[in-house]
Each structure stands twice: as C-alpha cells, then as structure tokens.
C-alpha cells in the first residue's frame, strides 16, 4: 500500500485500487473494508454490552436495541468475517498453488464490489429510517411484521453481497482445480488451500438456499405474496429451513479457513511437517459434507417431531469426530517439534482449548431434549461466540499477523502483538465464559434489559468488563498497524525464517505477476523440501517467457454500483412513490450496460516481455 503511494500520486493510487483485478490488491480491499465493518460491528457490540451492564438500564430503547443487536450479528457474519476470510484467501491461495492470479481476475473484482455495495446498502439503513430489527436470522414470523424498511435493507443488501460471495466461491473452485503449478497435486496442496477449496464448494451449495429465501421474503414484503404468512396459508417454518440450510454450512464456511490458517501456523512454528496430513484433508472434506445434514439442530424446539430431532441430533454429534481428528493432529504436530512462540503461534495455541470448549457446548446443544432448556438462552450465545470468536476471529487475527509481511512487506510489532493477544484472549473469556451460567440461570437471549435481584447482575457486569478488554486489544492492533505502516521497514522473502509453502519463496510483497517462472513442486511443503536440499529458491518448471496479464477495469465497480442504485428504487417502490421506477431503470441500465461493454469490447490483456523480466542473473546464466 504505502510503497505505491510513494511512487504514484494519491489519486492514481485510488484509481489503481478501484480498477484493479490483481488478487493481491483485491485482498487488501477485502481487508480494509472487512476491517472497517469489523470495527462498526464491534462498536455495536459495545453498545449491547453497555446496555446490559446493569439491570433496568436505559442507555438505549428496546426498539433501538433490537436494531443494534440485529446489525451486530449481520455485520459480523456477512460483512466482517466473510470478507476477512476472503482477504486471506485472495492474498494467499494463488501464491500457495503457484499461480499468477485467480482463474477469473475480472470476476474476482466484481465479487468484491458486489459485497462492498451490498454492505454499504445494508448499513445506510441506519440513516434512512431504521435498521433491520428481527435478528440476524430474520425469522419470517418477526420480520414480516417489522415496520419501516429495515428488513428490506436486509433482504436487498444481503442479496447483493451474497451474489458477490457466490462469485468469489466459484472463482476459487476453478482456480484451485485448474491453476496449480506443475507438481502441485491435490495431495500436495497446503491445508489452507484445501480448506479454501472445500469452503468454496460449501459456498456454491449453501448460498443458493439463502438467495431463494431472500427472494421469497422480498416477494412477501414487496409484492404481497404469502409464502411465509401463516394467516394467508403460507408457512413461516419454510424461511427457517431455508435460512439454516444456508446458515449451518455458513458457520463452517467461516471456521474451515481458520482451521486452514492454524494448520499452516502449527506446522511452520513447530518446524515440523503437519501431523497426519491426509487425515486432515479427509476431516476437512468430511466436515464440509456433514455440514449439510445438520441444519435442523437450530430448530429442535419448532416441533419437528421426535424422529427428525433424533436424526439431526445424531448427525450433528457426528461432526465432532472429524473435528476431534483435527484437534489431535494439531497437538501431535506440536508434540516433539521445536516450537517457537511467535504472535501467530500464541493465537494458534490459545485456539485449541477455546475452540474445544465451544465444540463441547455444541454437543450439549445437539442433544435435542436438553436443547429445550438451552435454546434461546445465553447458553447459546456463549456457545457460538466460543466457536466464532474463539475459532474464526482468533484464526483471522493469527492469519493477519502471519501473512502481514507477505501482503505488505513489513513485520507487525511483536510486543504490541502480544499485548493485543493477551488482552483480547482474557477479555474474550471474561465476556463469554460467564454467559454459559447466565444462560443456565435462565437469562434469555435477545432481551434489551433484565430485572434486578435475579442473580444476573454480577455476571452481566463481568461480561461487559471483558468486552472492554477485547476492544482495547483491537485498538492496540490498529495502533500496531499504523506504527508498522509508517515505519515501513521492508523484510525479505521468508521473514518468519521457517516458511514451508510456495508463498514464502517469493518476495514480500510479491511482484504483480507473482512468479517469474512457475515453480516445480516436488513434495508437500515444497519450499521446505528445497530448503532441506540446501537450495534457497524453487526450481523453475518452465523457461523464462512472456507473461500474459489481464488489464485493469472499472466495469466490476459499475456493474455492482448499478445494482446498488436499483436496490434503492426497489426498496422505496413499495411506498408507491413514482420516482422509484426511473431509479430502478437507471440502476439496471448501468449494470447491464457495463455488462454489455464487457461482452462486446475485446480485451485480450497484455504481455510482460521476457526481456523486461530478465535481471542480471538471468542474463549471466543464459550465456
């Protein structure tokens, strides 16, 4: 980022990022916008905890609390965790498989801008008459009766950003299937690439049910259809099914990349090959597979009947088996390794007990009869924060620390990193451990306040204190990032010194074409294989030649922007406003016009010539 700013003007840099199709820059775009939404979602979390710090609090009103709560969940899942996962995938996966970019660079950029405008659209609801207020799950029985346009912002915003996610998922599938460098067989792919592969398949199958659900919801709210309206012969449970057929795979879409990141970190800093590589691959695929057969565990109390409940309970518990395989493999990777406690490794080690606790409460919840007690209580809140914060967020923080040098060419400060780690970890356990007991004592989730003298005061106060500690940790991380970027001390190819996979064999940040010559992969952990033979770089798999590169384009942005405009028209069209129709038309014209330009204009990209790629060494070597 900063390196470019020195060479180019500010405007040129901005234009460069708006039009980029380079996976490394798109990763940075995902990181910045995901980070921004993470901070917004975090602020909302702080408001929730302030409101619940003491009994009978009136920091926010009941209605406003519902909006904050809904937007916290929706923002964190769809607009913070997802893009941050995509940031790491974009930054790392093409490098790990030895590719020069993803399979469809243009689509990659389109996916980002769709997510971005969808997210902005959703958040604009704050200023345009109120945010959605029916929970991140937006159950139809609540949302159909929600006043104002909040739910419509939810439906249209998620529809647009969901499209972006689907596109990104397909892109990674094709990339991993088709773009692996010579020698990079499936069973030599690093585990982060494997988890990206499985996650992309989950996206491919899980997002369409959400799309369908959102379309039906849109019809119910905008055109007066009655899919979910029980009074008119619809069935409100259908939304719940569609949402959770998407929703449960979605939680695995978030956790599997974190598993992948941790697998890389454990192997790197134990300086040992990942224990049980093939069983890790098998477990990842199995988790992805089982993830589609368990969604009804979110609906045990809706009255599915004992047989359905039993089937889904058993299927849910089965997931613990592959998850357990992974946990033990990570422990055995550290066992006997020469472990180095860098900041990413601290996160990785802390992740194991934390996530295991979340898994254990998951199994408790999966026992259908017991779930009648736990359901809709703070116990559930504690469970999913243990898996999502203790798994996904720790994974993302670890990944950002680990790959920061590869993305930006600078090392984050270790001391500040440790401060962030400890405050965040302690704050996290303070906030959420006590919530298990609040739930067991009967505190329901999604309430805007609680009464005095019910034994809930101390627990809630502790929880709020913990939340402030977490916020402090994040603040230190932001400061760390600023300090590091200002100092701008560049590092070499392999700044951790123990890199095993291809990305560490090339400069940090990599040149825009990634690999001058595609590397030849001779085993699992290819860079490590070469290092063990005393080499310092990869053996090339091809002679030096011209490299074909895609051109930058502003069209992805305009395609997404058109949908954003049209969504406003669609939203206010319900109020029978006449100006909305032209807005819809203009928006769709922008979108389809941009698509038309893309289709008819020939864009063959350009070539970097061999001569421009040669440095002195190549010239000397050729002779």
């Amino acid at each position, binding site marked *: 980022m900063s390196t470019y700013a020195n060479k180019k003007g500010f405007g040129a840099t901005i234009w460069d990022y708006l039009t980029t199709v380079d996976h490394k820059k798109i990763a940075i775009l995902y990181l910045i916008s995901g980070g921004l939404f993470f901070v917004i979602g975090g602020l909302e979390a702080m408001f929730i905890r302030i409101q619940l710090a003491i009994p009978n609090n009136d920091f926010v009103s009941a209605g406003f609390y519902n909006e904050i709560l809904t937007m916290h969940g929706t923002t964190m899942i769809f607009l913070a965790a997802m893009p941050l996962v995509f940031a790491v995938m974009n930054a790392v996966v093409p490098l790990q498989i030895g590719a020069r970019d993803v399979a469809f660079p243009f689509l990659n950029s389109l996916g980002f801008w769709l997510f971005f405008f969808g997210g902005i659209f959703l958040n604009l609801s704050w200023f345009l008459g109120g945010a959605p207020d029916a929970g991140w799950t937006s159950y139809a029985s609540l949302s159909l009766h929600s006043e104002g346009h909040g739910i419509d912002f939810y439906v249209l915003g998620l529809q647009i950003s969901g499209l972006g996610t689907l596109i990104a998922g397909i892109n990674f599938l094709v990339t991993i299937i088709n773009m692996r460098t010579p020698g990079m067989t499936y069973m030599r792919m690093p585990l982060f690439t494997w988890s990206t592969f499985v996650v992309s398949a989950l996206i*491919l199958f899980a997002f369409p049910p959400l799309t369908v659900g959102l379309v039906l919801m849109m019809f119910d709210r905008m055109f007066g259809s009655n899919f979910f309206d029980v009074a008119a012969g619809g069935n409100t449970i259908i939304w719940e*099914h569609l949402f959770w057929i998407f929703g449960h795979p979605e939680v695995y879409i978030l956790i599997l990349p974190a598993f992948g990141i941790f697998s890389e970190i454990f192997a790197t800093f134990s300086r040992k090959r990942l224990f049980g590589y093939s069983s890790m691959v098998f477990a990842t695929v199995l988790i992805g597979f089982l993830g589609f057969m368990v969604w*009804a565990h979110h609906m045990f109390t809706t009255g599915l*009947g004992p047989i359905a409940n039993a089937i889904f309970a058993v299927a849910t518990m089965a997931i613990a088996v592959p998850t357990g395989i992974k946990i033990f493999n990570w422990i055995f990777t550290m066992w006997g390794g020469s472990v180095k406690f860098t900041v990413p490794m601290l996160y990785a080690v802390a992740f194991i007990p934390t996530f295991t606790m979340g898994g254990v409460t998951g199994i408790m919840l999966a026992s259908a009869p017991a779930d009648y007690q736990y359901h809709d209580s703070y116990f559930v809140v504690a469970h999913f924060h243990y898996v999502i914060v203790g798994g996904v967020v720790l994974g993302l923080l670890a990944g950002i620390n680990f790959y920061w040098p590869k993305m930006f060419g600078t090392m984050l400060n270790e001391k500040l990193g440790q401060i962030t780690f400890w405050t965040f970890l302690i704050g996290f356990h303070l906030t959420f451990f006590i919530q298990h007991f609040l739930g067991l004592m009967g505190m329901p989730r999604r309430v805007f306040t609680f009464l005095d003298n019910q034994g809930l005061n101390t627990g809630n106060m502790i929880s709020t204190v913990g939340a402030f500690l977490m916020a402090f940790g994040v603040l230190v991380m932001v400061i760390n990032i600023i300090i590091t970027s200002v100092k701008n001390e560049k590092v070499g190819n392999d700044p951790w010194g123990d890199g095993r996979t291809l990305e560490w064999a090339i400069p940090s940040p990599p040149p825009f074409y990634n690999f001058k010559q595609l590397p030849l992969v001779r085993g699992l952990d290819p860079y490590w294989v070469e290092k063990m033979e005393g080499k310092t770089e990869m053996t090339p798999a091809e002679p030096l030649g011209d490299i074909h590169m895609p051109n930058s384009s502003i069209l992805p942005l305009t395609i997404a922007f058109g949908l954003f405009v049209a969504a406003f028209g669609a939203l206010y069209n319900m109020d029978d406003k006449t100006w909305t129709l032209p807005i819809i038309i203009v928006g769709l014209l922008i979108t389809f016009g941009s698509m038309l330009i893309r289709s008819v204009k020939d864009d063959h990209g350009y070539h970097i010539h061999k001569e421009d790629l040669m440095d002195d060494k190549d010239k000397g070597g050729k002779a």
Partner: protein
Amino acid sequence: MANEQSNSANPNVDLKYRRKKNAEEMKHQVISFTLMIFFTLIAFAAVGIEGFSHWFIKPVILLLAAVQVVFQLYYFMHMKHKGHGTIALFLFSGLAVGLITVLVFTTIVWL
C-alpha cells in the same frame, strides 16, 4: 476438451480423425434432440388427451423430465467425455444437497 492439442506431425491425419469424431458427435446430438422433442410431445399429449388418471400422468412426466436432464448433461454438456470427473463430482454433490432438502420438506414441513 475443446482445445486439446494434436500430437501428430501430419495435420491431415488428425483432421480426418477429428472430422469422423465430429460427425459421430453430431449424429448423437441430433438423435437425442429428436428424442427430447418427442418426449415433450408425449408429455403434452398425456395432459391434453382426456382419460388418463393423475396417478399415471404425473410419474410419467417426471420420468420423461429426468431422462431429458440426463440427455442434456451427457450429450449437450459433454458429461460423457473424459476429463469431466470433477464436474460430475460437483453436480452430484449439488444433487445430493437438493435431494436432502426435498426429502426433509416432504417429510416434516409440507406433510
């Protein structure tokens, strides 16, 4: 796949072989296309002609539809060719997810 490279030094040999292959391909496509139109006609006829019971019409139409999907995938979208293993894997996984959904909806939602 489409742009497989020839590995013969004499382009004519390869061309001849490819011509023959293409002709065969074309024949298959025409046959399956005719069959598909024929199936569609049957479907329309089954509904149009009076006298058949619902219990006959519905399964027959669904069966014909299933056969058409197979034709579509295998003859027009090249699933029968080599190198489509990954595609088949994803298609069938998607099918599995879809079928589980239908199964659940028919047993516990719509019942």
